[in-house]
């Protein structure tokens, strides 16, 4: 495996001299896969003009909506503004986007833009870089050296580390800590005197190479980076982080821009002339909110107390041995936090979550400048929080009143709170603490303090003595929950020239600008031009016995509903070939219904036709199940995958082609409406943005449902059925919130089906779809455009050709 990737790297290194050869080699490798249809593989690929930009597109044909998407995107780039684009899955959004932006860059050589592409999962990151590779290879063959770019993926240490000793650590945080233990500046200084201190060879040789440690141009996936690092003996993580400022394209996770703790380190050097893309962004408001929300439990406080004890000991030790160090820190703090620039790159492991700029310039308040004073303040804070957790009732408070009662009862001022996070950071640095994951509890508390001290609006503090769903188990929790998604994303909108928010489901498209409070210059929803009706959405409202089905609270555990849901699946698995995917509204509902199906024998009937796999809350287990599911589909055995809306699978895994011929959404995936946090957020949305509670809940549930069923299709050659199994989907107010590309295929006759009718439709649909067909489109509708078509379009106008 490693040999292979090394080869890839060498090929991309030699691109400068011999691009043609490597492309040929690439094509040869592909052809040898399948000689059967060699003529499909021979590629002409496209070059066409959109106004003044020459676009390079690495395929023979282009979908009309891809072309339109590029046109709109170009308008947004020209206007240097933000845009919001909804385009159905399966229409090649990513390649259209990459192709236009890289071509745009090539057409403006004097003011090159940088592309920052944000994905939600590592899997999507690798997929995007894979597509970029194809594109880049193609641009190189046409333009030669001037098309060279540096593109790389950036991820956590866990995904990039190549040091086997560090990797032996079990989770992400211990990989981080194990790395810091070997790379922190004071550890390295210590190692200079004491040969027994372990260092990381990869990091050492990366440091030794200094400014010469550079990545040659090319497109690097995480795997490529690891291979390159191993080959050169340089640490891929630090190399990648260093290269971020030189790269033309960066692909990384949302958090690197939205979570201020991370963004402060990774993304602070990005220039204004960058295009930021948030792909699959239908949940972006939730990511923003999560980034600014903190919860504190009893264990957090206990841990934080232990952390303080440890810090106290360290302070005493330093006082005895190196008092000068503490004094130097004190002096630095008087001058303000912005001046701590003398710290080396590896030491900047956390930065301030507070957004206002003044915090960096102001001097740290006097009462926490001295280390031991700061520890005292934190002790008082912990004590106060502990007292608040003792409550027997649910309490809800605004940050303003929380801060004022904190001031009166514990004597901690708002300004002091605001500085907590940075003060802790500075102290830990001074004390040379590397076991950062051990200090997570105290960091969480300081994070909380800084946020509550910084924001007066858009947040609430909710204290619950127990989980609503399990009232007999006391589990007090104090949550600082953010309700305003625009807070976290505001700096991104302010700082960068163009921000592109795109997804397969952004309906209703006018809601997102309100939720995120920005003004897009372009906001469009594209239809899908279909070669044939390759998706078949259905609304199933009742079982074969005519009893209604729904996951409405009063109906969901009704034996009739559970049975009818089961029967639906039993019948479907006997008709649908290969893969079937099911989504439930929650883990607990899935657990319950599967247990019942197991007892009543329905599960046994299902397994007579197909193997069954489940998503669980354990990520590793789920990954394994998913892997096996795909293998079962590949080998022809067929399988059913049971999953949960809002779960990890629903967020980022495609069930295209034979991996999903049918997806069933059991119920409407509403959020848990009794949740105090949700209620507080709804109230905030109503008061601030005039968004009605019911509207928001329906919008949120339907975007999740659309997201689940949208997994089934990834190209127009693909086909699949979608069943919305709940009587509530037949109501217009619910259904109309689905994205247009699904609605346009939802026929009136399919709005109120029973199981037997659905089976009949499924049989007909599958038989029809399994036939060969003409891919370029029939009946006067062009669904696949060639270069000639585009040239003609440039003369006659887009609309005539496309529809």
């Amino acid at each position: 495996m490693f040999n292979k990737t090394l080869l890839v790297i060498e090929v991309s290194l030699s691109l400068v001299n011999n691009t043609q050869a490597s492309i040929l080699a690439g094509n040869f490798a592909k052809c040898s896969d399948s000689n059967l249809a060699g003529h499909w593989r021979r590629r002409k690929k496209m070059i066409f003009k959109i106004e003044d930009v020459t676009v390079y597109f690495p395929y023979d044909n282009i979908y009309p909506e891809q072309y339109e998407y590029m046109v709109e995107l170009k308008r947004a780039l020209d206007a240097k503004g933000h845009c919001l684009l909804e385009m159905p899955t399966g229409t090649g959004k990513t390649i259209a986007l990459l192709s236009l932006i890289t071509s745009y860059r090539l057409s403006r050589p004097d003011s090159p833009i940088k592309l920052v592409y944000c994905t939600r999962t590592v899997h999507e990151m690798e997929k995007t870089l894979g597509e970029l590779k194809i594109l880049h290879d193609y641009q190189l063959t046409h333009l030669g050296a001037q098309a060279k770019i540096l593109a790389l993926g950036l991820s956590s240490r866990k995904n990039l580390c190549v040091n086997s000793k560090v990797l032996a650590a079990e989770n992400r945080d211990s990989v981080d800590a194990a790395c810091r233990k070997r790379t922190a500046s004071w550890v390295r200084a210590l190692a200079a005197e004491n040969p027994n201190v372990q260092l990381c060879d990869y990091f050492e040789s990366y440091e030794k190479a200094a400014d010469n440690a550079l990545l040659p141009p090319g497109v690097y996936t995480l795997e490529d980076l690891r291979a390159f690092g191993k080959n050169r003996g340089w640490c891929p993580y630090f190399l990648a982080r260093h290269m971020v400022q030189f790269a033309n394209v960066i692909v990384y996770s949302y958090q690197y821009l939205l979570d201020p703790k991370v963004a402060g380190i990774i993304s602070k050097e990005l220039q204004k002339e960058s295009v930021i893309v948030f792909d699959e962004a239908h949940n972006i408001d939730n990511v923003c909110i999560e980034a600014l929300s903190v919860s504190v439990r009893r264990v957090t406080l206990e841990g934080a107390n232990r952390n303080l004890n440890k810090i106290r000991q360290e302070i005493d030790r330093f006082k005895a041995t190196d008092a000068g160090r503490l004094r130097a820190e004190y002096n630095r703090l008087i001058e303000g936090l912005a001046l701590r620039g003398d710290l080396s790159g590896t030491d900047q492991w956390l930065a301030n979550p507070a957004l206002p700029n003044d915090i960096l310039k102001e001097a740290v308040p006097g009462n926490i400048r001295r280390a031991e004073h700061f520890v005292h303040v934190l002790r008082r804070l912990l004590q106060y929080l502990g007292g608040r957790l003792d409550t027997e009732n649910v309490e809800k408070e605004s940050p303003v009143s929380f801060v004022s009662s904190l001031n009166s009862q514990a004597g901690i001022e708002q300004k002091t709170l605001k500085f907590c996070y940075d003060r802790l950071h500075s102290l830990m640095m001074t004390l040379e603490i590397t076991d950062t994951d051990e200090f997570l509890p105290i960091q969480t508390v300081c994070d909380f303090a800084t946020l509550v001290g910084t924001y007066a609006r858009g947040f609430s503090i909710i204290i619950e003595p127990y989980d609503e769903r399990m009232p007999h188990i006391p589990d007090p929790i104090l949550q600082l929950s953010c309700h305003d998604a625009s807070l976290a994303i505001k700096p991104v909108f302010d700082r960068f020239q163009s921000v592109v928010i795109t997804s397969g489901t952004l309906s209703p498209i006018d809601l997102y600008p309100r939720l995120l409070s920005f003004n897009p210059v372009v906001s469009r929803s594209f239809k899908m031009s279909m070669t044939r009706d390759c998706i078949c959405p259905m609304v199933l409202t009742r079982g074969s016995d005519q009893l209604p089905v729904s996951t409405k609270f009063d109906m969901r555990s009704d034996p009739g509903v559970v049975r009818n849901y089961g029967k639906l699946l039993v019948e479907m698995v006997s008709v649908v070939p290969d893969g079937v995917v099911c989504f439930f509204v929650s883990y607990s509902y899935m657990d319950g219904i599967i247990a019942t199906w197991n007892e009543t024998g329905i599960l046994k009937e299902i397994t007579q036709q197909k193997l069954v796999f489940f998503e669980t809350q354990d990520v590793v287990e789920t990954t394994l199940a998913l892997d096996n599911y795909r293998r079962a589909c590949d080998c022809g055995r067929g399988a059913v995958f049971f999953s949960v809306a809002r779960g990890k699978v629903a967020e980022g895994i495609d069930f295209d082609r034979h991996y999903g011929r049918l997806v069933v959404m059991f119920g409407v995936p509403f959020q848990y409406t009794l949740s105090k946090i949700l209620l507080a957020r709804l109230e905030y949305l109503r008061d601030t943005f005039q968004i009605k509670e019911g509207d928001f809940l329906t919008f949120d549930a339907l975007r999740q449902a659309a997201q689940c069923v949208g997994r089934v299709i990834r190209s127009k050659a693909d086909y699949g059925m979608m069943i919305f199994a709940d009587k509530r989907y037949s109501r217009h107010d619910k259904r109309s919130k689905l994205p247009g590309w699904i609605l346009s295929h939802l026929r009136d006759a399919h709005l109120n089906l029973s199981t037997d009718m659905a089976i009949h439709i499924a049989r007909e649909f599958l038989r029809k779809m399994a036939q060969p067909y003409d891919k370029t489109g029939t009946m006067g509708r062009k669904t696949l455009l060639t270069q000639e078509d585009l040239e003609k379009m440039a003369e006659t106008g887009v609309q005539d050709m496309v529809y």
Partner: protein
Amino acid sequence: AKALAKCEEEPNKPAAVLTSAEQLSIADLELRFKVLRENSELQRLHKEFVETKVLTEDEFWATRKKLLGKDSIRKSKQQVGLKSMMVSGIKPSTDGRVYYIILSTPSWKLSFPVKCSCRKEIMHTISSLAQLTNRVTFNLTSEIIFQIFAEKPAVRQAFINYVPSKMTEKDFWTKYFRAEYLYSTKNTAVAAAEAAEDEELAVFLKPDEILAQEARQKDHGIQRDGTMDVVEPQNGQFRRSLLQDLNRHAAVVLEGRNIDVDSEDTRSVAEALARVKQVSKADGETTKDANQERLARMSRVAEMEDLQAPQNFPLAPLSIKDPRDYFESQQGNVVNESRGAGTLKRNVHEAYGSLKESILEIRTKGLSDPLIKPEVAFEVFRSLTQTISTAKNIIGKNPRESFLDRLPKSTRDEVLHHWTSIQELLKHFWSSYPITTTYLHTKAGKLKDAMSNSYSLLEAMKESVQSELRHQLSLLVRPMQQALDAAFQHYDADLQRRTAKSARGSAGEANGSV
């Protein structure tokens, strides 16, 4: 020596083989025997024609090269997959009776009463159970044992460790099912209490450590980047989730029976499974392969499918034992939707018409892509399947029973056998034309004789059958006789033509004497 041994197993064959002019390697011979052994129909044909010297050994095999190809050597035996259903589910019942569990295997039997829990829940097994008053028999077959061991490596390891040094196999399974029962009651407190007293029982109740370790090694994929995603340890040590069990079960089924032990001996099954695991671990195979597969998948998804040739997935080949049975069962679906007979007839004509049209088009315009328009292909296939299924229904009246099924079994087998042997003869007969050598000439003659023989057998069969079936039977037999008649006609016409030709030319050649 091995080949000879095989020959003795097949006492009918050797004479015919030895006459073969060509020198065959021993491997080839072995392969032919093997194919014959596995295919009784072929064996019967071979016996009928090769041994009676109607066909030579080489002629017989010449049309079946594919059966002897490389693929057939590799895929000699179709691996029988495991059942998708979970076999070892045990759950409490609520009828309040005391049950005795009887575990039985080929070598031993044991029975033990199930203690009532406080909720008076008595267990019974989901599958393979026969309830007699208060007894539940659970057949512990070797397949079930295999599945338990494969799904629960810790149980397998416990078996290797404890049996027979610490306990007997009977005791082992008693403990195992006791643990399963405790688990099924969902009463974790009782389970924990019993596990505290009995360390072997505890092994069965605890989450599987070996599994957890394997899973950890394969960790990659869908976790979100950047957020904290530490897997929380399971709260109750004695709780397993049904979903995890199901996932594990499906994984084992997918893996198939990956050990080469046919033995009924439980210990050797356990040891073989342990070996398989060790080997794959030593190679680092599991993680490496998985990783490679993941990379391959990644490059597949990066490209857009519309412009690519279809992917070749590692499909498990399906060999259908009785094709006739299989395809007839498939027709059930079509029958339900068949329209009236009138429209059907029209459809057949329409389909035929459009097929003819597209063939004409190919003649004038040459090949195009797609070769045949999808709509045409669809229509043709649809009307063909419908014709087959309706024909069957009209004759058989009852959709589940065709006329063939109403014949006495012996007659039915005879009809089917005649059908295949006539096919065989016709195939060889027609391939002998045009006759260019004496060899082909004698071959055609021999075949003609054999066919006349078949013809009279068909006549005899028609006579022998009961009168009420005779009409239907003759309908069935008619196409065969028509095919034979056509062959006879051709034979005679060709003979006449050639006699005339040789009479005109210089006489005295060998072929003139015929």
